[in-house]
């Protein structure tokens, strides 16, 4: 397990490959709603390359992090916008 790290997603621990792309890890965990729009609609990644901000999640308390540009680090606390 040397190449794996544990992060927390919405309070639940998740063991993932070190350096995995956060958006990918969330999708693999079955999450399709990364955030809610201002009118409450479910939204997920659109551009996959850091432009549209639809994949944004809260990382270690910092909101609006683009999960498609974020690599998983040990202990990272991630909240999708429920």
């Amino acid at each position, binding site marked *: 397990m040397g190449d794996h790290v544990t992060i927390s997603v919405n309070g639940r621990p998740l063991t993932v490959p070190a350096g995995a*792309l956060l*958006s990918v890890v969330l999708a693999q965990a079955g999450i399709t*709603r990364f955030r809610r729009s201002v009118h409450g609609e479910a939204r997920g990644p659109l551009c*996959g390359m850091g432009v549209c901000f639809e994949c944004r999640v809260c990382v270690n308390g910092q909101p609006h992090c683009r999960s498609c540009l974020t690599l998983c680090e040990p202990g990272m606390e991630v909240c999708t916008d429920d």
Partner: protein
Amino acid sequence: MTESGNNAAAPDVSAPPAVPETRRMDCDVLVVGAGPAGLAAACAAAESGARVVVLDQSPWAGGQIWRGEESAPGGSQQRAWRRRFRESGARLCLRTTALAAPRRNVLLAEAPDGPLEIDWRSLVLATGARELFLPFPGWTLPGVLGPGGLHAMARSGWPVAGRKVVVAGSGPLLLAAAHGLKAHGARIRLIAEQAPWRRLLGFGASLGRHPGKLLQGLSLGSGLWGAPYRAGAWPVRAQGADRLESVTLTTGARSWTEPCDYLACAFHLEPNLELPLLLGCRVEEDRVRVDSFQETSVVGVFCAGEPTGIGGADCALAEGEIAGLAAAERRDQAKALFGRRAAWTRFRDSLRVAFALRPELRLITTPETIVCRCEDVTRRDMESQDHWRAAKLQARCGMGACQGRVCGAAARFLFGWEREGTRPPVFPASVGSLAGLPHTNPTVRPNPQGCP
């Protein structure tokens, strides 16, 4: 009262946020963007003896096209460029986003450890392109992504194996993405290209000695791996409750619905012009105007790759090398590469004609369709306005996190609105990175040679 009490939910608002110290760097040639154009520019400049710094906002070099080492397109070509780049001596700063130009010959960026100011003598803008998204009912559902974006994330492990995928929109990337997604186990149900066969044939013929080769690639190629390719077809509606379940497409004469897990849909590419505009570079017809050495209307600022016209990786490499040599004051050497670039700029011109968007696509955005996804602004909210700035002020479109990168391009297509200038920062940034940013743009010195 400034000491923290028991009420942790009430932060002290009177104290300014901690401002991390701004790091400074200095170089001869600063390259923004580490895709093919940026890497080629950096190699050419560094091999000429210049001190080169390259910035990219991603955690990887190679841009979107060369993202994901093993499974990226152009495997041997990109590996050769990566090796050349490693040996060039250029310094690479990843996860570093260019934000603003606070003073002449200075760029402000946000790096993982805080703000970074870089002094440069020449600047090469290799900011690449993004996919052009056009709004239609249901395009905001999770499961609707750009073909390039889904392919890029599939290369990083996004789960597509066994999933039904419809690829739609326009441009050569549709086929490349479909092929790549198929290689990752996706079941490609359909590739729908909005351009009619007539124009695709013309594009094939324009490629030169092997007319029809592209056509072969499109029809036979996709047929061989079992995915039907339809020209003259486009999506009009996506359906699903909390995520995508099906997409309805049309040829104009006939409409039908395809069940799918993913709709990979974009209408070719849109150059990233925010930084060139911020620096005062002249932009005409959605391209940064450059002279034969790739120098923009601003002295010392060069531009290469997609922002000068969507032309693909080979065009970007040729332009990048020329820009890098010119930026390092090796113009004689740069001239030797003009011939190679000319072949690819002809290809670029034929791309523009072949994949021009049909006017019917303006009708897929219904009045109720959300155009600005950040602020949930509908077409109806926007179309009563006369221009982009009015729409921003009245309807709040383009005021969210993406700063109009998605809806601004859509609005230009839907309403024919003009592109407007950019204000710093060109990406959302932390307060610390913006401390000390002047309120006005620095003055720029026009290029006396002018631009073609």
